[in-house]
């Protein structure tokens, strides 16, 4: 099974991909409308919360953070695999990433934008959010550089701006193709502006390659640092269940894991909707599935490290919390998290499931459910069973307002992603061409070698 057919004509690649930018079907508008409605639910809840105060979310004294922070980590985490595919695998010359990295990179950007919303929604005084940035002011007040939340804000801003830049720079040759092939209209003008006068000269390609590689190299340490910094929100605090040394790698592994699962989900959807079977092949899907399994195992290992640390650390509070997680109020969620994120990935071991699209789709959704629960299980139980016994007397469950905003965030992500897929090519045309070319060269070489071998075996070689 080959990653891509080697005799696809370049013109066919153009027409196939550009077809995805043509006027959408009715179903597209229906789904977009649903996404807007879902987002509307979230906006409505936020407006209500803004007016009434955070109390409508059913927070209380020990339960200070609820779904917002859990979902914030979830979306930040999801953004990491785009960078894995586009930057890390780029540097490692894994060319099978080429047909699928564009939408993964878009996923990175949009999930970061979604995560950013939660930072704001979470605040008690959202209208003062700019206090957290070091903006020039007359009273010479600085934000507190000791606070992991401030590192968070800075890391996310940096990561978001670099991701947008990376997505855009990588798209320039494709935007030029769009510019040259589109009927006139606002989109042609847009592509003309965005493609920055790309003509495909040698000099442009050389500069382009250099720029792309530079941003890729810049982005890789960022991707690792962003989720490490998110983990310090917990690891740098003093609370049981949070104050754990292994959190930074654990969070990064979790991020790559949920991101890879999301890539499988979107891969399958795009492949089906845009009929990209020629480019998003089952062979590539198999590679992503294997990658997901590998990361799932790394994550599971690190999770056991976390449990072991709590259990063998001889800290009564950590042990109490771990027991509470497994047997207390949160036990159903905790066991479901373990099942979804550590047991379900074993489905991916079997070869017949690695290319079975319905199974993979279901598995990828389950994995992400597990990863969302994992974030919830990091945030919530520490509040319910923290240091102070006086706070152990009651549970507090998130209200519908909180759920509504979490629900709405999926609508927001879907809106952004759907608009992107219709305005920008979600498969990288120039890189697929490269891939086809390189693969066919390799095949030719191999055939030549084989032929030479046969000739030599027959004693008819040149020498």
């Amino acid at each position, binding site marked *: 099974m080959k990653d891509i057919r080697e005799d696809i004509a370049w013109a066919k690649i153009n027409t196939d991909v550009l077809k995805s930018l043509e006027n959408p079907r009715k179903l597209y508008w229906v789904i977009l409308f649903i996404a807007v409605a879902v987002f509307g639910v979230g906006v409505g809840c936020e407006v209500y919360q803004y007016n009434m105060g955070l109390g409508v979310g059913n927070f209380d004294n020990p339960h200070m953070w609820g779904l917002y922070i859990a979902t914030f980590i979830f979306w930040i985490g999801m953004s990491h695999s785009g960078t894995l595919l586009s930057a890390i695998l780029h540097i490692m010359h894994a060319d099978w990433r080429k047909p699928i990295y564009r939408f993964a990179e878009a996923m990175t950007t949009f999930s970061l934008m979604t995560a950013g919303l939660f930072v704001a929604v979470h605040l008690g005084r959202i209208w003062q959010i700019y206090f957290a940035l070091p903006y020039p002011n007359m009273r*010479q007040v600085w934000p507190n550089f000791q606070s992991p939340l401030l590192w968070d804000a800075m890391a996310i801003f940096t990561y978001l701006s670099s991701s947008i830049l990376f997505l855009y720079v990588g798209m320039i040759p494709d935007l030029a193709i769009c510019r040259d092939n589109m009927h006139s209209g606002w989109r042609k003008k847009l592509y003309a502006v965005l493609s920055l006068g790309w003509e495909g000269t040698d000099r442009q390609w050389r500069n382009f390659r250099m720029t792309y590689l530079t941003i890729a190299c810049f982005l890789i340490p960022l991707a690792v640092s962003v989720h490490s910094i998110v983990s310090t929100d917990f690891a740098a605090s003093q609370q049981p269940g949070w104050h754990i040394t292994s959190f930074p790698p654990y969070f990064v592994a979790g991020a790559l894991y949920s991101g890879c699962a999301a890539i499988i989900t979107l891969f399958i959807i795009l492949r089906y909707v845009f009929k990209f079977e020629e480019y998003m092949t089952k062979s590539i899907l198999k590679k992503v599935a294997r990658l997901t399994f590998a990361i799932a195992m790394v994550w599971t290992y690190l999770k056991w490290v976390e449990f072991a640390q709590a259990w063998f650390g001889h800290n009564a509070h950590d042990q109490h919390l771990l027991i509470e997680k497994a047997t207390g109020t949160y036990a159903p969620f905790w066991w479901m998290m373990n099942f979804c994120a550590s047991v379900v990935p074993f489905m991916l071991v079997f070869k017949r499931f690695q290319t079975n699209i319905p199974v993979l789709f279901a598995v990828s959704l389950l994995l992400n459910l597990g990863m969302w629960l994992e974030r919830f299980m990091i945030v919530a139980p520490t509040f319910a069973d923290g240091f102070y016994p006086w706070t152990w007397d009651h549970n507090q469950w998130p209200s519908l307002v909180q759920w509504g905003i979490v629900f709405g965030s999926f609508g927001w992500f879907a809106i952004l992603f759907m608009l992107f897929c219709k305005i920008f090519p979600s498969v990288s045309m120039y890189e697929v061409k490269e891939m086809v070319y390189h693969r066919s060269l390799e095949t030719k070489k191999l055939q030549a070698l084989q032929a030479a071998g046969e000739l030599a075996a027959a004693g008819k070689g040149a020498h």
Partner: protein
Amino acid sequence: MSITTLFENYSEFRHRHPDGDVPHNPYKWAMAIDLDACSGCNACAVACYAENNLPVVGREKFANGQVMHWMRIERYWDHDGSEFPERGARYLPMLCQQCEAAPCETVCPVGATNHTPDGLNSQIYNRCIGSRYCSSNCPYKVRYFNWWDYPSTDNVWPAEMNMQLNPDVTVRGKGVMEKCTFCIQRIRGAESDAKTQGRLVRDDGELQTACQQACPTSAISFGNLVDPESRVHKQWMAQQVELNKHEQAKDEEPGGSDLRGYRVYEWLAPYPSIMYLERVRETEI
């Protein structure tokens, strides 16, 4: 907006008290609470409500855990098998411990909670953006968040009731964190009175916190830990409790000790400013 101010602010508002053996300031406000004297009557909590303009949130929000008592009396039932009328309980008045190395201070993204030179853990309502990280990192959970808009939407103090509000204390709007201030309005008043008269605040009842004033059994004493004549200082000395240690003489003595002074969660090393005097129970004598 210069880097210099950043570092100056850092050194000024993150110091510990005392630094070496030298106090930064003529004052270090501290407390001692005698649990043997505490009868759990809740007068301190009521006084705190009156003094600090705390909203009375009502039955429903109380059940929701959104109560705003800066000073709370915690009740811990005995587990000796007896039933209610005979069953014993212990009380623990819990308020902000005004930690010297406060876990809440370092995590605030905007620096809304800081250390004052006289050893208080201050909270700047105007600066707070409501990230609630301070409360998450507080080992004692003594920080209270304004989940609702108590003064306006919730109308906790309707027209005729707002006359009871203490004019020296702000009324907090929604979305900010608040907590016990050691009655900072009284402290500042006494400090400035003393300053104009060219002396230090005396330890003769010139300065009392609202909870201390209301306590019928005088379980709470409050004062300047730096002043060797103050009652608080003498109590801390008698119990051999030192501010900048995270293990006290009481715990170090093998086989138990006659000392009663301890601080809650001392081993986490937040260096709290409140010393509790352990209850002496009949069964233990």
